[in-house]
């Protein structure tokens, strides 16, 4: 199971790539394996305000539905529209073409506050069995 070293993670199995003031967000390899085939993802609207730790969308798989949480505070500036036609990208490339949305982070937010390091996330998934 892949946990890229350059990313940060949440307890709810999102990953975050922070580049300057912008965060790109998706769900982890572990999450996709737990969910099974993703068939639909509901993403926040461009322009919507999102709050760290609050649900902003949902991920439907064959067996279940899960809330999608924003890992950061800010404004949604882009969503991955490819996922509407091809949600399978999330399973195929969770850290690549399966990215979900981008947030311009609110001013003054410490980029990695409350997020897990790759090592911490790896430990979390292993302890979850």
């Amino acid at each position, binding site marked *: 199971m892949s946990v890229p070293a350059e990313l940060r993670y949440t307890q709810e199995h999102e990953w975050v790539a922070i580049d300057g003031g912008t965060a790109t967000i998706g769900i982890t390899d572990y999450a996709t394996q737990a969910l*099974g*085939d993703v*068939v*639909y993802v*509901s993403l926040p609207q461009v322009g919507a305000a999102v709050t760290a730790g609050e649900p902003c969308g949902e991920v*439907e798989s*064959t*067996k279940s*539905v899960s809330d999608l949480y924003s890992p950061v505070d800010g404004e949604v500036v882009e969503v991955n529209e490819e996922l509407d036609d091809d949600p399978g990208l999330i399973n195929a490339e969770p850290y690549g073409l399966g990215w979900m949305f981008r947030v311009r982070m609110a001013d003054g937010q410490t980029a990695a506050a409350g997020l897990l390091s790759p090592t911490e996330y790896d430990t979390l998934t292993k302890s979850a069995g």
Partner: protein
Amino acid sequence: MTSTVRDTPLRAVHERLGATMTEFAGWLMPLRYGSETAEHNAVRTNAALFDLSHMGEIAVTGPGAGAALDYAVCGWPSRLSVGRARYTMLCAPDGGVLDDLIIYRQADERFLVVANAANTSVVLDELRARCSGGADISDESEVTGLVSIQGPNAGGFLAPLTDLPVASMAYYAGAYGTVAGRAAWVARTGYTGEDGFEIFCAPADCEPIWDALTGSVEGGLPAAGLAARDTLRLEAGMPLYGNELGPDVTPYEAGLGRVVRLDKPGDFVGREALAARAAEGPRSTLIGLLGESRRVPRHGYAVLSADGDRVGVVTSGAPSPTLGRPIAMAYVEGDAGGPFGIDVRGKTEPAEVTGLPFYDRRK
């Protein structure tokens, strides 16, 4: 740490295939091997293998076996010819469903009752209590493995490995023979809405039979797990015990009144209650719903009338790989008519009523 979770005889095979395992009815079972959608589609278009060794197998034997089963279940097993199978139900005295069963007549004085894994002990206890005199009840679950091959090409893959004329075997028929040189009871039955065969064999023979089936095909045969099995049976409109069936419904609510043989002679458990229900009509109706959005109705979600009143509940729901949209089965109040909505986590999603099954291979 102690665990009461049981392994099937194919545990090592599943591990070798990298399956995601899950606990189901006290068994550690393969949920999926890779993509459950690909496994589902393999069964619809080609064939795939299932490990169903968790199912319960109970033999009812002896000169009185047929008559004993006629009293115990709502069907009419004594009328089965040797080598034929029937879908039936075990009902409580009040008509509630205790399990749905396949009964095979394997010999004049031998019937094999196949029960859901979670209900095997209930079925065993009820059969022992109900079948007094002239019939022996024997739990063969521990000494029986079950490998299933399902899909339109299942017969073609099985034929070279068996001495049985499977191509000419009728649907819901079975026979003793060999598969890959191992003794087996092979039946043309399944729970996928597709053609297929179920191979009952000794636990130690599961792996050689599995390997022979997958080894006979260039590139191997795909394996399919419980996730695909659930979407396959749902598309086929087949009820799942615990979802569509349970002690609080009779076969009539589930639209399966045809399995209740009120025309058979003699008493049987539940006859009085079932006859009354047949006369007064079902209290609720099992319907099919096609989701009109991409948000998926799930087990337990409320079905709403056009006025937003709760008139039913979803029993099973999933994104249908074959239809490309959400499908669901739901119980609605007897006189409720559409259009219906489904409360999908606080937002009402429209749903179109449709006949069952959602998918019929003959069409």
